[in-house]
């Protein structure tokens, strides 16, 4: 299976970005982004879809981590 060309990559990335934007707008509710999800899945190799899904999870987790983390100065006041 040949690797995607530059054009195919860009189509895939565009579809991914659209899908992610929809998710952002709907606060992660994927039920309202089904159309874009299908478009995303048809544009990208399966491995890439898995990869991008994991990447999205990681980015979301990172946001939560950086926002919800207790500030170090509060917990280590005496050190």
């Amino acid at each position, binding site marked *: 299976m040949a*690797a995607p060309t530059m054009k195919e990559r860009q189509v895939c990335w565009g579809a991914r970005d659209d899908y992610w934007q929809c998710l952002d707008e709907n606060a992660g509710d994927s039920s309202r982004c089904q159309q874009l999800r299908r478009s995303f899945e048809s544009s*990208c190799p*399966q*491995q890439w879809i898995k990869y991008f899904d994991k990447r999205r999870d990681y980015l979301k987790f990172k946001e939560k981590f950086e926002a919800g983390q207790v500030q170090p100065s509060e917990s280590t006041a005496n050190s």
Partner: protein
Amino acid sequence: MRWEEVYFWGLQTSPSTPFRKRVYHKSIRAMLLLTRGPKAWPRLSLLKPPNLPRTLNDGTLCERAQHFSGRGPAKTVRQGQPLGPGLRTRLLITALFGVGLGGAWLAARAEKERQRQQRRTEALRQASVGQGDFSLLDHHGQARCKADFQGQWVLMYFGFTHCPDICPDELEKLVQVVQQLEAQPGLHPVQPIFITVDPARDDTAAMARYVQDFHPRLLGLTGSAEQVAQASRSYRVYYRAGPKDEDQDYIVDHSIAIYLLNPDGLFTDYYSRGRSAEQIADSVRQHMAAFQSVLS
């Protein structure tokens, strides 16, 4: 009678004469005066007792001796001899000696530095030939090794063609660096190289298809699994193919860096994902300006 007038077989003493010698002369003088008879004995009282603690300044020593011996400040040999020219001479000699020592030290240090540089140059010369060598095929099918790029600055990236986003991004950045440097007159063109860490799928045809999307001079290198492994080891690149899915597709996990090689073929610098194209171009320019070949 002043002490200067007491000659002892042609020998003269002065305040700069070492204490030891002066004691010798004094004792001889004392004996001489004794032998001259009672008329000379009053002169004995003019002589200082030699059993005094040594100090640096014999002028004041003698003055102190005056007080210890109970004699008043009458006409004595060394009264009022302050820090005389003797001290200045001594200080000057010490200073000259210090300067001489300092100069010798600096010269020795410069020599040591020169030898260290020489050893380093020799080590680099050996490394430039032996280290980081690779034996791969370019995307035209031609065999290439590191020596082929001697005389050129090289920016290298390890990746694979099935890469979702990182490799295209990094290659795009690498190409921007090359273009920025190309735009600068007077600089030699930098050779961009892309080496695959997925030789199973990335044959020369796949590499040719891939590199054409980025830059006309981007050279794709591939080879057998052993050749790629050897090249990756040379540059400490980690890579590992992930699990295959139903399509037999897989993603290769690998370390991400752009490597800079100088015209001697020596590894010079590396740039991680966080560096922008402008930062990398600046760094390459600095290395170019500072470069001195060890092979010539």
